[in-house]
């Protein structure tokens, strides 16, 4: 897929849509779960869908609904949700060198989720400048739309879907780790990078296993970066 370079800027968004397709395997089942849980918490299908449209932040939406349903003060629910999303702060600056001055980027930042960032961070540097905006628009819109429609589907028919195809909801989400693996593997260009990336992966897994999935992401990334800074192999690889 990556080898099929887009030949015209007008085709770039199609390329973005195509390359973001694997994200759907992870997004749709989780969005269906969110829709289902939101309705069970007392929201209507349209309210659940509107939350996915406006907030669009995966795990923190579950936290928000859980805290509201549990009777937590609203200010605390908002604060905790935003705290969970703080990790997104490093995504924009990491993409900045590849973004032009188009004002559209400001709007498109609404679609900068963990998964879209991972894909864009890998792909934008490989694309000609004229195609980046189109590519990102296609990829981000597909992901956003799938999240919104998945929520609506879950809110309207989540119960029935989960009962009818229980295994599908377990199998499709593996598309996410598979995609991330393909994005991380090319970065293992030396012992130093490989070790740091493995530390980051390992710490994140440990955090997730003990129930600190979201806070685990920045912690694991910081551990990986620290490892890269402190550990040096001799002789250094020339491309470092």
């Amino acid at each position, binding site marked *: 897929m990556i080898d099929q370079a887009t030949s015209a800027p007008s085709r770039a968004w199609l390329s973005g849509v195509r390359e973001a397709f694997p994200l759907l395997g992870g997004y749709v089942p989780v969005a269906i779960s969110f829709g289902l849980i939101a309705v069970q918490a007392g929201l209507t299908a349209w309210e659940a869908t509107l939350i996915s449209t406006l*907030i669009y932040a995966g795990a923190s939406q579950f936290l928000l609904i859980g805290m509201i349903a549990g009777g937590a003060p609203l200010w605390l629910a908002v604060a905790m949700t935003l705290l969970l999303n703080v990790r997104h702060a490093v995504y924009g600056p990491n993409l900045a060198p590849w973004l032009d001055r188009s004002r559209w980027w400001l709007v498109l930042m609404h679609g900068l989720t963990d998964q879209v960032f991972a894909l864009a961070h890998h792909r934008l540097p490989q694309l000609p400048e004229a195609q980046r905006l189109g590519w990102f628009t296609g990829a981000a819109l597909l992901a956003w739309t799938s999240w919104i429609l998945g929520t609506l589907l879950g809110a309207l028919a989540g119960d029935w879907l989960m009962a009818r195809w229980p295994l599908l909801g377990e199998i499709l989400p593996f598309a996410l780790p598979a995609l991330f693996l393909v994005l991380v593997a090319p970065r293992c260009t030396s012992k130093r990078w490989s070790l740091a*990336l493995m530390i980051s992966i390992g710490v994140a897994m440990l955090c997730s296993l003990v129930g600190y999935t979201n806070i685990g992401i920045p912690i694991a*990334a910081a551990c990986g970066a620290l490892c890269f800074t402190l550990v040096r192999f001799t002789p250094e690889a020339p491309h470092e």
Partner: protein
Amino acid sequence: MSNDLWLALLATALGTLLIRLLPLLWMQRRLRRLDGADGIEAMPRWLSLLGPMMVAAVLGVSLVPDRLDAIGWLATGIGVLATLVVWYRRRSLGWPVVAGVTAFGLVEVLAALP
């Protein structure tokens, strides 16, 4: 939904957008100030390291299977292996994901057979 709840949702939506947007604006201003410098070089070292490490961390949390039993870990291991083998041979994004999900799914389906 009550008005208070709507206000809370709008505040969360706006806050999340600003968390994603403001650091980008900061970095774009920094890049403009250092006009002429290569974009990557202009990025603080810690920030350029955190990008790939965040992707690796997201991989780490997504690798933990929903079912934390032997079948869950076996399916994950085989899915990872299939993904890596196809990536090594094709160096593309799509086919390795298809291979990984298929391998993972096969293990799950076989394990579910009576």
